[in-house]
């Protein structure tokens, strides 16, 4: 765990010292604010409805941000040739994978936390419970973790950043399409309807509910992504 934390600190310091991190954070906030105003200032909706729709949009923005961020974790380093230092380090595969993931996740969590002023605007003329906002944001952290873990796996598999982004986006997009595909198939309906991170498992968080199965889904998907990344790193190291 110490090794993972060392890697995470190094990465976070890189985000803090490079302009790209701030541009990504600022861009994500602008997009979230535009989506929020598109809902809140459009039709007149009840406060909880505004919050639920904002959280849904935020879920997709977080997924997209995770996919874009993940290509910096492994694929870009491989493309630039700077991954040799990591691959030859004495740290274990799991420490490397976990450290990189932690850095990306903490960065995403910071961006998500900075956006708290947006649902706070609901209190100007409406009212929602703080618990509802807390549940929604907990779900967003879960979406960020699972999307980042999957995208990190794609980034470790493919040393080309653009291709890695496409693959990660494609996989996550297919997962989100699961419920639509499940509606067409009797045999695999239940399975397909339970694979979408935002459409299926983020729904309860959007409504202010913290549901055990949804928490388990995000934790397990994240674990699988990190384990898969460690596996791929191990493969690359053994060559």
């Amino acid at each position: 765990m110490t090794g993972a934390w060392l890697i995470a600190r190094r990465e976070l310091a890189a985000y803090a010292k490079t302009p790209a991190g701030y541009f990504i954070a600022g861009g994500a906030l602008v997009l979230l604010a535009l989506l929020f105003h598109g809902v809140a200032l459009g039709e007149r909706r009840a406060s909880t409805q505004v919050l639920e729709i904002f959280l849904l949009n935020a879920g997709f923005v977080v997924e997209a941000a995770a996919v874009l961020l993940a290509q910096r974790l492994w694929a870009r380093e491989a493309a630039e040739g700077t991954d040799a230092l990591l691959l030859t380090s004495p740290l274990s595969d799991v420490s490397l994978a976990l450290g990189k993931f932690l850095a990306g996740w903490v960065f995403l969590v910071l961006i998500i936390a900075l956006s708290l002023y947006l649902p706070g605007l609901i209190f100007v003329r409406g009212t929602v419970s703080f618990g509802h906002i807390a549940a929604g944001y907990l779900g967003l952290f879960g979406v960020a973790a699972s999307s980042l873990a999957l995208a990190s796996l794609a980034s470790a598999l493919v040393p080309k950043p653009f291709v890695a982004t496409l693959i990660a986006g494609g996989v996550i997009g297919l997962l989100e399409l699961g419920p639509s595909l499940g509606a067409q198939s009797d045999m695999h309906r239940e399975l397909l309807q339970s694979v979408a991170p935002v459409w299926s498992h983020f729904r309860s968080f959007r409504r202010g509910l913290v549901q055990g199965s949804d928490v388990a889904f995000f934790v397990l998907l994240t674990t699988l992504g990190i384990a898969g990344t460690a596996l791929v790193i191990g493969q690359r190291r053994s060559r």
Partner: protein
Amino acid sequence: MKAASLVLAGWVAFVVAAALEALPVAVCGAVLLLVAAGVTFAQERPLGTAFRSGVYGLHGLSALLWVASWEPALELFGVAPASAAEALLRWCGPAAFLLSALALGAHELRLRDGAFAGPSKVLRAQASRAALRAVAFGSLLVFAAGVFAAARRWEQRIDLSYFAETLPTEATVEFVAALPEGYRAVAFWPEGHPLWERLEPYFSELQGPKLSVERLDHMLEPALVRRLRLEGNGTVVVFAGEGEDAPRESIEVGLDVASARPRLRTFDARFREALAVLSTERRELLLTVGHGERSPSAQDGDAGQRLGLFHQGLRRANVGMRELAPERLAAGVPASAPVVAAVGPDAGFSAEETESLLRFVQGGGRLLLVVGSEGDEAGIAPLLAGLGLQRLPGQLLAERSHRVEQHGAGDRRRLLSSLYAAHPSVRRAHQNERRAPAAFENAVALAPTEDAAPGRRVVFPLRSTEDVWRDDGDGLRSENERLEAQRLMAAVEFGRLGNPGATREGRAVVIGDAAFAGDGLLRRNLGNQLVIADSLQWLLEGVGGGPSRRLGVELPEEDQPIVHSREEDRLLFYGTSFGAPLPLFAIGLWLRRRRRR
């Protein structure tokens, strides 16, 4: 033929079979995989290694196992649904297929890396290790799926949403405090039921000498349930006194948590309605008809024309609504009627009707008059003059303090104002002014007349903001159309001193927009709800039996639509969309410049 090609063909067959739900195609896929295993065995035999062909063989067998777990196969083999065999097949088949597919894929990919040099012992060892790592990952995947399935079965949830905890509103607490002693609420749910656990804090807040609360299980009280004619648990019965024969009212909630959520949101209002029905003498409000007024029926006209919510609010306070026909009105308002309401009388009143209404109010009656800029001036002006009021010409338009609905010039007439005075007719609206602006659709300005009748007092509890003008109809502000605050509502009192023979002081509330109390504005504007509720509360004060009761249309605890004006829109939009993220961009640009230096 290469083994890898056969495997790929097999996998394609499985995908097609899954899409078409065709068992024969899946069987063909499994056969292809077994043939691939045979080909691999033939290739490996001269080298004397078994690992690779073992992986292929296991993959082929797992494919058969997976096919056997499909529903058509289960039906074919007569495996009973929901049996242990079916459960085992459903889990083991796909799990084995996945694990062997991962092992095979990892093994072959590793071998391909060394394809130029030929398969050496070292490469084979690495490929075997890769396959085992893949199996480890696959096992983690299967384990995760199992944990997820268990989590779904166990399913625990924490509800943090706004309506998670049902608590009584201030209106209900005061209502209960003003009750005489001896009221009882009996909730029928089994012990530990989630809905009872949701409502228990609600009743704990209200429980006391005025209201006792008890929970009973329907199954354990058959005699009582039979007497009350209840079908099952999920109901709250309120009794006005001891004994099962006391007057009672029932409130249905239900047993399923998900479907009961909408009923929980309105539980407080329904509980208060039940208490009102039991504790107050029924009072009546007469609604004038026949002059183009808004319809009391919820079916007629568009939302702005209907008074459905207005009617609902009165019902919850045990106030009945009856129509007052023009002929009856002209003959004189019935003595039994405490309150008369005229909502949007576009055609105006005849001289006899005006005389009758004024006599009624001056003699201690109560009048709610909601008029707009439309309507026959000759039919409305005398009534207003009798109340010490006049309508100023011109529709009110606002430069900034208006709702945004069509994003055009037409929005200027949709005024918003929360400039309430400290008057009982707007008491709660004043307390909640920050989030309860009153909304208008076509407002008209009111003003006092110059004549002063003895004992009559006129106040204006609601004014517009100062960016409002009286428009001459062209929608544009000209030089002679000044911006100034306008009076939107008036409260009139006729003291008993000026009216000998009156048993109480007469009161009238006049609101300068015919759509103010319609469903269109009432449904989505908390300010309108509170103004109407407070006004009716003030008008009903001291009228009818029993202690004064709080009128409640849906109060602040209900989820309200967000309403803000165009001015606020602009500030919020630019401030939060670009202003808030600006520091991040600034830091990024500064770092970029520093790097270049």
